């Protein structure tokens, strides 16, 4: 009996230790042959996007079969996963589909291959310049833009009859209509991504492409001072959940948001209107938000599959994918030729985004931007939520940003 117990104890311990090595098993690879071998070539693309977008992409890339089999795999925490395995040919994907703002980090790490190694700049001539700009880091194009997103002025047609054309009109509207838990306008006023729309018309920037923060510039101080007068008429916390719930519940007449909000807003049976961004009276320029460009990047580990990767990129250069995404997911295509299609040009939201594409600022794709989000939001929270002195907070934030950028090296 004693021996039986000992044996059982050893067996169970061995099972436990053995099970801890399960994760070390070799990844079974299907036909991941290089171009020189016969048989279909498999291209693996990681993505962390909306299911509808992923399905549309998969359908489009299935057209390359049977010679090229494209597998779109959903990868949670895609950025972190790429950091871990980006240079390991056995674990890394061949390509990934993601927003452009991280490509600078991955390019700096050395895991990306410029797409110009596979297609020419001439092949990209129909792509909107703003999207190609967003895809460029240190003079090299690392991403093939597929669609872009930006913020729009959204309003509830039942509550707001005429959307404001200028920010003075907007402020007047807010003063008249903000009472008893209802707001004329609600936005994420202290989130850097949204607040930047108020900075750009003044010529202010969070960080430029030379990795120089601009938080203490005179333009930044002026833009924040101007924006601050709108804060008392908005929800104090300005969080995503608060703002979107207020709008969906009909307690906020208008908001600034992206296309990702639209399905929920329509499900809440809001009669949604899209209007051009109000013009800032003091500068004559419209509120100018950041834009995000979603596209495909190629990893260096896929360079041995040049022909297959080229085929994938050329397939995505066609207008088909842009038109499909516009129809299925209201995405604004990066390919300007897509707008000749009636379904695309007739979509109110896509048109609104196309108009703003002329003036929007792509999110900085440099690695240093990673530290700027927290610093900028700390500054905005101190000014907007705790009544901090604008100049003092800007100077403090600039110092903090510079020390964090230095700490990156």
């Amino acid at each position, binding site marked *: 009996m004693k021996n039986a117990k000992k044996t059982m*104890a050893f067996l169970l*311990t*061995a099972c*436990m*230790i053995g099970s*801890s090595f399960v994760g070390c098993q070799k990844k079974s690879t299907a036909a991941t042959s290089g171009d020189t071998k016969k048989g279909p070539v498999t291209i693996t693309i990681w993505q962390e996007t909306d299911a509808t977008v992923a399905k549309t992409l998969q359908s489009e890339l299935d057209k390359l079969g049977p010679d090229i089999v494209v597998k779109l795999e959903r990868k949670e925490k895609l950025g972190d996963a790429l*950091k871990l395995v980006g*240079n390991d040919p056995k674990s890394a994907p061949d390509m990934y589909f993601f927003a452009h703002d991280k490509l600078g*980090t991955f390019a*700096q*790490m*050395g895991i990306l291959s410029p797409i110009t190694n596979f297609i020419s700049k001439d092949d990209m001539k129909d792509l909107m310049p703003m999207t190609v700009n967003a895809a460029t880091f240190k003079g090299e194009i690392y991403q093939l833009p597929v669609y872009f997103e930006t913020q729009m002025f959204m309003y509830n047609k039942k509550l707001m009859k005429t959307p404001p054309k200028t920010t003075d009109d907007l402020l007047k509207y807010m003063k008249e209509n903000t009472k008893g*838990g209802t707001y004329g306008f609600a936005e*994420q006023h*202290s*989130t850097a*991504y949204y607040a930047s729309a108020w900075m750009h018309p003044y010529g202010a920037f969070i960080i430029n492409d030379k990795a120089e923060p601009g938080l203490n510039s005179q333009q930044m101080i002026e833009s924040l001072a101007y924006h601050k007068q709108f804060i008392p008429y908005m*929800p*104090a*916390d300005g*969080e*995503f*959940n*608060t703002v979107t*719930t*207020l709008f969906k519940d009909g307690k906020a007449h208008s908001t600034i948001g992206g296309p990702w909000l639209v399905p929920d807003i329509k499900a809440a049976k809001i009669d949604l209107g899209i209007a051009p961004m109000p013009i800032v009276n003091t500068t004559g320029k419209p509120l100018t938000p950041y834009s995000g460009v979603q596209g495909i990047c190629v990893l260096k580990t896929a360079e041995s599959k040049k022909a297959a990767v080229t085929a994938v990129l050329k397939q995505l250069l066609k207008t088909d994918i842009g038109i499909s995404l516009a129809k299925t997911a209201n995405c604004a295509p990066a390919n300007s030729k897509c707008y000749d299609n009636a379904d695309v040009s007739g979509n109110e939201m896509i048109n609104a985004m196309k108009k703003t594409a002329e003036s929007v600022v792509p999110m900085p794709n440099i*690695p240093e931007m*990673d*530290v700027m*989000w*927290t610093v900028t*939001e*700390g500054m*905005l*929270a*101190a000014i*907007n*939520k*705790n009544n901090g002195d604008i100049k003092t907070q800007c100077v403090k934030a600039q110092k903090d940003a510079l020390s*964090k950028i230095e*700490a*990156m*090296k």
Partner: protein
Amino acid sequence: MNKKLRPYAYSLPALAVIGFIILFPIFYTGYISCTNMNIYHWFNFRWIGADNYKKALFVFDSGFLPALLRTIMWTVINMVVQVIVAFFIAVLLNSEGLKMKNLYKTILMFPWAMPAYVSILLWRMGIYNTEFGLLNQWLKQLGLGPVNWLSNSSSAFLACMVVNLWMAFPFMIMTIDGALQSIDKSFYESATLDGANWFNKITKITVPSLRPIIAPAVILTTFTTFKQFDIIFLMTQQQGSNTGANIHTVITYAYEKAFITNNYGYSSAISILIFVIIMIVFPIVSGKIMKEEVD
């Protein structure tokens, strides 16, 4: 097998697993802290010795000391309230004649069953939110204006403390409840015969009997509370939801100063320095508690 070696042989597999899961990451972090692993040298990092530590000590600037003092205050206040309140709840749950005590115990365990991330966000949105939170709804019913509970440092500190206590009570109540079951009832009977009242019984029998039993739980909870990150971060500092309150603890301070820089060498050095601080404090605290037991 030699009798002396046998216990080690039986423990060896478990120790190996613990070594792999706990010790290896610590040693690996220490190794990375002596390299220049960052975005600019992600795969081709090299050994740089103590350079990251020299840089890390500058992180302990004007903001670090207040963060450390705040962390100590956070730990002490949370532990005192936790132990006292959990003790009284456990004593009440063990009252003679109390009906449905199992139901009460089950309800009290509920916060423990919920994932911490979900609980914290529910508190943030459901209780403290300026528009929809329960507290502001009550204030509205009373004709008062809304309060931004999380933007002011003092109210944010108290708000986070309430959440921490809510999540921590089940463990402490369960530990004390179990410990109370182990106290011999004859002590109380003798005390009653000697004319002791409720307060005398609590202070002379219950508390001294409980101390050695709950000491490990208290020590464990003290260190968990000291290195608390998720409550402070999710309630006040999450990207996109920064409330403006400055209630940095040592861990959140280090996170904001170092971990977001993608400079793993530097962040690892900060982690090791915090680890050293905890390892210095740990023997002092546990030694003190153990000494009191012996006395």
